């Protein structure tokens, strides 16, 4: 019972500034603030080359985090994404090294297809363990995190897996280093992935189901929504996003190792949360997530360009950012 609200409702009232959702705006305001701080710290910072570099480097986390936005919006969590990147990348490189297909272009196409399938399958496994196995997503993906990491270590025998075919390398390199109309490919990919994700989350039946399940799974069930299917598909989307990140990662170094993608899960979750998505589910902000990923990378960049903080403190600063983001969000909730 909220009599005060009722009265407000029935009496009619004009719209006011309160209708602007501050929580949705906050990450972008923070991004703008960082840009200003960066420009003050070092004039080179605001140059288009530097910013494009930063955006390019944020691609892996940004794309993985877009997937995490779905998982988190539906009320789950996926800790295995960092390991999954390493595992999927290993499989991709091993396949390309196998020489199963002679024609490089054909081989590359097959490898891309395989990567997408493996990524989706890894996500599906996470989803099925969580939903059919009825295991807390935290525990389930903690388990698969170990499994994917362990398999990578085993495949690489503790060392690195390197793409050996020079012809393939040459063919594949532009996927990371190339540009499209002057824009680096990774940035193009980030925006393509985000636009598709935003469309799915905000404009499709499935997206609505994700938010409903994350908001209150009982309400979703009583509304005839197949709750477990929705959650599983979110994990598969996460897997596909990991695969896309891998497709950009492999041409960059042409190699992976047992330490690839370590702590990426935490960075992805940080990006999601800084972007304004509630960790308890029920509200997803895809553009906020991208913004969060940029913020994380920008902070690192500013620290590198400035002389007064050691870049070895990046982890600590990123940790502080997540706490500050939460505090800011909390205070915004209270006000509205």
């Amino acid at each position, binding site marked *: *019972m*909220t*009599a*005060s*609200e*009722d*009265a*407000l*409702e*029935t*009496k*009619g*009232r004009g*719209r*006011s500034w309160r*209708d602007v959702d501050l929580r949705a705006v906050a990450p972008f305001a923070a991004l703008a603030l960082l840009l200003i701080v960066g420009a003050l710290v070092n004039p080179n910072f605001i140059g288009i080359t530097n910013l494009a570099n930063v955006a390019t480097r944020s691609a892996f986390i940004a794309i993985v985090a877009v997937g995490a936005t779905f998982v988190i919006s539906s009320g789950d969590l996926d800790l295995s994404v960092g390991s999954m990147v390493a595992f999927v990348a290993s499989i991709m490189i091993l396949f390309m090294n196998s020489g199963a297909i002679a024609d490089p272009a054909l081989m590359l196409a097959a490898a891309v297809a395989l990567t997408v399938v493996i990524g989706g399958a890894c996500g599906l496994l996470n989803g099925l363990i969580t939903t059919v196995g009825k295991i807390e997503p935290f525990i389930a993906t903690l388990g698969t995190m170990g499994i994917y990491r362990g398999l990578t270590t085993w495949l690489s025998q503790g060392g690195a897996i390197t793409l050996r075919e020079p012809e393939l390398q040459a063919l594949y390199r532009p996927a990371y280093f190339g540009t499209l109309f002057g824009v680096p490919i990774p940035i193009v990919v980030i925006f393509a992935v985000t636009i598709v994700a935003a469309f799915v989350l905000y*404009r*499709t*039946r*499935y997206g*609505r*189901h994700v*938010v*409903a399940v994350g*908001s*209150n799974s*009982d*309400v*979703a*069930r*009583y*509304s*005839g*929504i*197949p709750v477990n299917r929705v959650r599983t598909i979110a994990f598969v989307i996460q897997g596909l996003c990991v695969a896309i990140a891998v497709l950009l990662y492999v041409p960059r170094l042409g190699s992976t190792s047992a330490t690839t993608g370590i702590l990426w899960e935490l960075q992805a979750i940080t990006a999601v949360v800084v972007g304004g998505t509630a960790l308890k589910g*029920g*509200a997803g902000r895809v553009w906020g997530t991208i913004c969060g990923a940029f913020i994380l990378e920008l902070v690192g960049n500013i620290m590198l360009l400035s002389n007064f903080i050691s870049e070895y403190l990046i982890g600590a600063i990123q940790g502080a950012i997540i706490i500050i983001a939460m505090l800011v969000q909390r205070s915004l909730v209270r006000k509205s």
Partner: protein
Amino acid sequence: MNPDAADGAPVVLAARRISKSFNGVQVLFSVNFELRAGEIHALMGENGAGKSTLVKILSGFEQPTSGEILLDGQPAKLPPNGQAEALGIVIIHQEFNLAEHLTVTESLFLGREVTRYGVLDRKFMRAETRRVLDQLGSHVDENALISSLSIADKQMVEIAKAISRDARIIFMDEPTAVLSREETNYLFRQVRKLREQGTSFVFVSHKLDEVMELTDRVTVLRDGQWVKTAPTGILDGESIAQLMVGRELSSLYPAKQEPSVDEEVTLAVEGLSTHYVKDASFEVRKGEILGFSGLIGSGRTELMEAVAGLRARSAGEVSVGGVGVPGGDVHAANRVGIAYMTKDRKHKGLLLNSRMTANLTLQSLGKHGQYGYLSPKSEAEALERARRRFDIRVRDGRVVAGRMSGGNQQKLLLAKVMETEPDVIIIDEPTRGIDVGTKQQIYHFISALARDGKSIIVVSSEMPEIIGLCTRVAVMREGRIVGILEGEEISEQEIMRYSAGLKKKTAA
């Protein structure tokens, strides 16, 4: 009625010309209110009348815009955020503030644990808890986990908590909304006992019969204004209802319309069993309103959830228009035209953090675009239609469901269920926790749906509702349908006889 609470008793808490505005919108207009020592004072009014705001002001959770509060005759400024507890003023919320994993004792002493040499003095706290519970005449075990208690017992723990903090003034907001009749009686006995000891109660409720039964005086608010304060004894339910809505409630229930005997059967349930429900069989015809009565725990909701595919069934057939419906598949049940409207609108019905549109179309998104795409325009039109059809009154179409009044929420839930265009509508507790004006509207909606040829099942614990709406009534007891009453048989006494197990006939 308590003779002690006659005019002579001192006034413990009073509001003088209290006004309150939120963001420039006035919700209370110079309201006066007096609470005497040892009285149970009902505060009544429709949703939005200002009851909750007044309660919040009288307990310090909100400050009045103007006017003053007198505590024991002295002007007082009540401290915010529940610190008024220290002055003996306690609110017992409709949704309890109890941590499920604590024991009763731990709950009672939460935040003011007693220690000896820095170590918790469990023995003392247990004994003290027992003493308070005994004083209340409650059988609740002081070592039990809160999660293991019934709702009535949780309420009792809340009251015990209030007493152990020396509460003199207790506000109860809709305390019986989630209680069965027996639990309510039990609660009332405890409340009366405390009244004897001089505790004052403010009782906010929509249930007229309970107000008549329990309270000493009634204050009615309407549209934020004080309307009347009078001893309960000189009022009757009808007159209170009239004061609340400001007009005569000539026709709370619309005229019954019995479908003809040879009207086709829409829903047929044959020998349905679940974990608890045993061998339930019944039919509903086109245009019929079938009631389901019975005590709480008689298996009505479980049966209906099984019919609607929300719960697995162990045996039995459900068919709509001759087409069988597979068990445990909500989607399949929806497809053949069965819709179930839950009684738990806050936890199972609506997404409280989502806007009206998202709630309205959640169950019927397929209608709003192809290939999974959603058309915002189509959804907005659906909302506009629903607002008009079900008279959902909100200032701003973008308000989240959790901030709407109970009545508007219930209308929105009904609209949401109707969006699936069902032929069979199962409505569980159609008017729980909503005011009498909205109740009347909902009854008329239900009746209009039946006239349109829908088959309707109304599950309700409110006997007048069942009797006023339904042309046939099935009574359940301990998981079985013990009788289906028609025509003249439908009376409170007769339904009681069946639900109490005094009478029984094989299901028709």
